[in-house]
């Protein structure tokens, strides 16, 4: 049995979680997930500004902080912290934590290969809209293929203490140690599917140990000290989900069910580069306090195509807010919204979308919100999105004047004009897997 912990569900997750995982009990592997779909484009821009950047900057200081524990307890780390510059990330880890052996997994970054792909007839059409990639070629900011667990397992086999990848699947981070330690082969679909589903359960960190849990949330203990998840994996594909003793949160069948369904598509076809996992075969069993046994998982052959994560510059947006108090807080907010829209109209400004929400009334649930006819205060939130940056910038100047020139009690403008933000959009596409060759490089 090996123990694989997840200490980071996204870049920005709790900084103490990975430290506590290596301090508070036994683990063999620490998986850390840093990349969301648009993170790559942000990192690409950072790299263009400075060739030594382009990776998750929280990661090297973390390794320095836990360096001694990793060595004492022989814990290996697997992270997709490399972003678009895994080598620079590895060098920084080596600089801050000289005793760890670092390996990087390369080959996911296809930003410089897109024109070659297009010339060879790969259309890379948008999986959601069907549009060909050529429609946005000039606006692309980053392009990466999702790679699977086998290249990461290869890096572990090279003796790395810390494996740094770029755009691998979140589930690969947890599956890789199982492949490495149990010698699972590429055609062992059921085992690979089991490891993939284990990875899915823990990839969002504490979401499988009681975080963001709707079931019985008020009685989930000590969430301030919530324990992050640990997979106890067996060579035959069975595994348990648990957390360190004495930590907060809860691991139960109900909690694990919620996370199994999180961001799930067709449950019979959970597609990864390693296999296709079938969530309708999962059997869960209560294994006692804070422990769930998982078994029965079946899987099918890996796909011939790999998914590309492409980010491109889409346009601009800004979201502004004003607060109105009772009496008639909602009526005042609605009046202010009408005035702003009329003034934008008079200026002749065109937007792709203008969207208004009334905080405290319907912002989250829209038309199905519980009616609240006379709230004590309402925050008016107006957003615009468009291709014309000047129009969006002009919009940001149209809210605050209402404090003096609109309905009474307008307040909450202390932060000034809202910022204009670039909208970086995501373009999911497919590419034949034989075009993606990965390699492992040990950084001394």
């Amino acid at each position, binding site marked *: 049995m090996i123990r694989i912990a997840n200490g980071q569900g996204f870049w920005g997750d709790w900084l103490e979680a990975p430290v506590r995982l290596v301090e508070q009990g036994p683990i063999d592997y620490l998986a850390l997930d840093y990349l969301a779909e648009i993170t790559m484009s942000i990192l690409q821009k950072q790299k263009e500004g400075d060739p030594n950047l382009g990776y998750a900057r929280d990661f090297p200081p973390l390794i320095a902080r836990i360096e001694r524990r990793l060595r004492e307890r022989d814990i290996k780390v697997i992270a997709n912290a490399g972003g678009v510059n895994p080598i620079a990330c590895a060098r920084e880890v080596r600089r801050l934590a000289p005793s760890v052996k670092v390996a990087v997994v390369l080959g996911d970054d296809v930003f410089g290969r897109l024109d070659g792909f297009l010339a060879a007839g790969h259309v890379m059409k948008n999986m959601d809209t069907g549009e060909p990639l050529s429609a946005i070629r000039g606006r692309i900011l980053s392009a990466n293929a999702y790679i699977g667990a086998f290249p990461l397992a290869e890096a572990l086999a090279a003796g790395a203490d810390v494996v740094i990848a770029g755009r691998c699947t979140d589930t690969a981070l947890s599956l890789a140690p199982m492949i490495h330690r149990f010698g699972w082969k590429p055609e062992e679909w059921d085992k690979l599917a089991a490891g993939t589903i284990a990875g899915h359960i823990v990839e969002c960190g504490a979401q499988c140990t009681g975080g963001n849990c709707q079931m019985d949330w008020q009685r989930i203990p000590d969430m301030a000290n919530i324990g992050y998840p640990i997979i106890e994996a067996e060579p035959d594909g069975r595994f348990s989900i648990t957390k360190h003793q004495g930590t907060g949160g809860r691991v139960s069948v109900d909690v694990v069910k919620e996370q199994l*369904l999180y961001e799930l598509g067709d449950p019979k076809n959970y597609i990864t580069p390693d296999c296709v996992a079938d969530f309708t075969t999962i059997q869960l069993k209560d294994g006692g306090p804070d422990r769930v046994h998982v078994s029965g998982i079946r899987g099918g052959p890996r796909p011939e195509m790999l998914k590309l994560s492409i980010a491109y510059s889409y346009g601009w947006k800004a979201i502004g807010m004003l607060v109105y108090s009772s009496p008639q807080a909602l009526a005042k907010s609605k009046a202010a919204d009408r005035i702003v829209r009329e003034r934008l109209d008079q200026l002749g400004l065109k937007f792709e979308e203008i969207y208004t929400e009334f905080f405290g009334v319907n912002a989250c649930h829209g038309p199905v919100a519980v009616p609240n006819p006379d709230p004590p205060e309402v925050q008016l939130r107006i957003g615009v999105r468009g291709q014309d940056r000047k129009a969006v910038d002009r919009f940001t100047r149209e809210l605050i004047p209402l404090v003096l020139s609109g309905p009474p009690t307008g307040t909450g403008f202390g932060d000034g004009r809202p910022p204009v933000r670039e909208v970086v959009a995501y373009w999911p596409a497919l590419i034949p897997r034989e075009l993606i060759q990965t390699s492992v490089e040990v950084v001394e």
Partner: protein
Amino acid sequence: MKIPLSRIAHARSGDKGDMSNIGVIAFDPRHYPVLAREVTAERVKKFFGEMVKGQVDRYELPNLGALNFLMHEALGGGGTLSLRIDAQGKTLGAALLRLEIEASESELGS
């Protein structure tokens, strides 16, 4: 009798681009047939009204006593494009639990 879905089920929701997914799970697996009968894709689509512009797909996971709903064009463009505060649809599962369903006393007996 009419009961809110929240009496027999919990839920978690999230995003996949401009799609929102909602997992609905029976507290008691014996109530799964009630879920499967009452919480149809059509009723979920009708419940959310103008919020969900596209189709709603339903997938069944009887092994977990659960249903998974994929609601297309439900997040105002999704991801970075969306102008909504809940651009990831994280609160939509909680909203769906207010859906009124029909269940008999004998079905709900434990």
